[in-house]
């Protein structure tokens, strides 16, 4: 386990190093002054000579990189070129707002996708299985932006049930602290917490559902195939021969082993979620990382672009690491591969 752990950590660190080299070099690839791109301090500012000196703009590239890393690790990510706010302080707020959507969508996808996949496997090649699989194919192929428009039209415009932008009705006056609206409501001193929570949940429904459709369908198919594979294995036959009923065979023997191979795909699903969240956040004006990144690109706000790229990549790396470690701990076979 220790060897596995250290090898995984090693891979993570290498990836992180390459990532920072990439974001560092972005400063030079972007048009304009590298120091400005790094810090958000413009060349005509009074502070520019000092900042430039500290960042070692005239020293060699290795010194600049080490300096960049020091600043990066101490949370000094510069200031936004368009608003002048410190990027780091806003990064985690945006990140938490995004994670609220992504975690919600992931949970929903697992809760619906996995059981339906197992169910479809038990009906292998039956009419129900075929129906579920065709539905999954359709759900997987619908582009998210189109699905979003469709559901907005139906649930928001036609039925007038759900709101379509932001995290909450701004009149509740919930100040952003963590960035995650549900947490912010709970820690706020609002007199209308219950109503605010309900309003926030209403705002969450559409984006979470739309975001979860694609991973849900993917999970469904993976789970169905994996479970079906397991059901063909001799040890399942043996279990049946021992007189276990179908349900016990499924839950005790087939599903746990099927999970192993599905789990391997989960990081992929997570990156899919993150990239789809950029589209969803733009459509629903969700103040998350994706929305922030898109706006920063339009405004050529390089410190923010960099922070977004870094944080998105880092989140994916970390998630990968966690899933790898979990698999290694849970399924010994993974450690031996």
């Amino acid at each position, binding site marked *: 386990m220790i060897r596995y752990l250290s090898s995984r950590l090693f891979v993570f660190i290498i990836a992180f190093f390459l990532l920072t080299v990439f974001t560092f070099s972005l400063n030079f690839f972007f048009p304009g002054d590298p120091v400005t791109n790094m810090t958000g301090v413009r060349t005509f500012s009074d502070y520019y000579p000092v900042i430039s000196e500290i960042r070692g703009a005239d020293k060699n590239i290795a010194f600049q990189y080490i300096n960049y890393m020091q600043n990066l690790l101490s949370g000094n990510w510069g200031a936004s070129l*368009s608003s002048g706010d410190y990027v780091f302080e806003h990064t985690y707020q945006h990140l938490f707002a995004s994670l609220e959507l992504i975690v919600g969508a992931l949970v929903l996808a697992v809760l619906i996708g996995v*059981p339906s996949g197992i169910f479809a496997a038990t009906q292998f090649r039956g009419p129900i299985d075929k129906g579920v699989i065709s539905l999954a194919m359709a759900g997987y192929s619908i582009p998210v932006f189109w699905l979003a428009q469709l559901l907005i039209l139906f649930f928001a415009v036609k039925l*007038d*049930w*759900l709101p379509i932008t932001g995290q909450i009705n701004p009149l509740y*006056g919930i100040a*952003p602290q963590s960035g995650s609206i549900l947490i912010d409501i709970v820690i706020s001193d609002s007199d209308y917490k219950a109503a605010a929570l309900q309003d926030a*949940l209403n705002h969450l429904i559409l984006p979470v559902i739309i975001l979860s459709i694609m991973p849900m369908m993917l999970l469904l198919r993976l789970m169905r195939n994996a479970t079906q594979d397991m059901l063909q294995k001799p040890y399942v036959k043996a279990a049946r021969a021992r007189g276990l009923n179908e349900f016990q065979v499924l839950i005790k023997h087939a599903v746990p082993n099927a999970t192993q191979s599905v789990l391997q795909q989960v990081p992929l699903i997570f990156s899919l979620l993150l990239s789809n969240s950029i589209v969803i956040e733009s459509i629903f*004006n969700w103040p998350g990382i994706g929305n922030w990144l898109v706006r920063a690109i339009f405004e050529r706000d390089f410190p923010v672009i960099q922070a977004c790229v870094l944080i998105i990549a880092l989140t994916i790396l970390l998630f990968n690491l966690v899933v790898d470690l979990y698999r290694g701990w849970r399924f010994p076979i993974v450690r031996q591969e």
Partner: protein
Amino acid sequence: MTKAFSLLISATTILLSGCEPGTEEVTPLSEGIIYCSEGNPDTFNPQLVTSGTTVDATAAQLYDRLIDYDAEKQAFVPALAESWEPLDNGTRYRFYLREGVEFHSTDYFTPTREFNAEDVRFSFNRWLDETSLYHNVGGSYPFFSATGLDKLIQKVVKVDEMTVDIVLNNADSSFLANLATDFAIVLSAEYAQLLSVKDMPYLIDQKPIGTGPYRFESFRKDVLIRYTKHPDYWREGPGIKQLVYSITPNANKRMLKLVTGECDIIPYPLISELQALNRDDIMVTNEVSPNVSFWAFNTKKPPFDDPLVRQALSHAINRQAIIDTIYYGNAELARSILPPTSWAYDNQGIQYDYNPEKARKLLEEAGNSELSINIWAMPVQRVYNPNARRMAELMQSDLAQVGVNARIVSYEWNTFRRRLSRGEHDTVLIGWYADNADPDNFFRPLLSCAAVATGGNRANWCHPGFDQLLYEAIATTNANERKALYQSAQHILNQQLPLLPIAHSRRYQAQKKSVRGVQLPPYGGINFRLATKVTTAEESEQ
């Protein structure tokens, strides 16, 4: 498995329980109004801008002026000044200030005194006096330099605590009108002093303090501005506790949000989609507003320095088609730069009707039968021009018919204006929205020689005779004389044609019927001073 299913079921019930439309509105919702504005304000001080978005967001909400203009009565009415009188043949105006006016008390500033003459002097000197401490904070004052107010006012003198004299260099009949605009606001001198002691003077425009009906609470770029009611406002204030500007640049999304109830009021709905707002709880209003969209020729660049070329190009454009296609008929073909509602309006000049034959002939006469030009089309939607790019496309095909090859150019809005001021364009599609009722507001900020220097003169056109007429017109208070002078000025414009007026449009706005008292004065930005929200119960009683 069963666990997973029960979890799933409980999760769905939680989610769905939030689904039912609320029958009763929670208090913060019934005591607040959401205005979905079309963009971020550049600053919280309208002295520094001419942008309509910033004015809508700040002027009438946060601040008061010495005097206001009542468009219905067509008269100036007292505001922070209780009364005023012209002295010394109209070269000195004395203002008697109102007692008991409180500045905003917020978590970043607590005023220790009420409004007095010091505040007026500070606010005016900020843009007037280049040596004043705050003059360079924030930079330029485009409205005041374009209208020449900074040249007109010699000094602001404090007579006593509650009396101020404004001394002019010469008599000017547009003075009071300019004073009643959204730009001539009053700031707190005490707050300014506090900030300069703290060495953070720039905060005066970011965390504003005024005397207006609302006070500043918070601003998140691209998300919202939050104002709360000023509890000690000196005159009748709003019936709501909170005013939120939800920043929504996309016009489609603004309309959607109005339908789903996430906005109470929206500016500039898409005119082509107005029938989508045909619902019981929504009301669409439009005001004839004093604006004009025009096609300005950069007269510093050949061949546009030749009036014949400008006339030829004007004959090539089918303006009626533009009005039908771009404005959906909700605009009037412009015969002059002044809208027909102005008292100085004149339409006696030559009419540049759509006539490709004549255009080609005139171009040949000018020796420019093969012409290649660019048209700069602004990237944003404005009340005077809902879709400049589409308009440019129509003009492109019109021009192609007379052998002129046009290329459409567009940049992000701030870049666009900056490059325009540098005169990089051949021709540009832009417009003007009047700040006050005086016809002068259509001429000097747009076409005077002084406006060439400030970048407001998009045609870079400087005509001494024309300028002379403008200065004569503001030097007299005799309405008939002024009218005659402005008509001669319009004649010169009509012949010289530094710009081709295209349309005078209407400003559209859509709102929930439950919102009352929001004013859209013809001159200036939206005003929420008397805004209230009626609940559904109250509504049915009425």
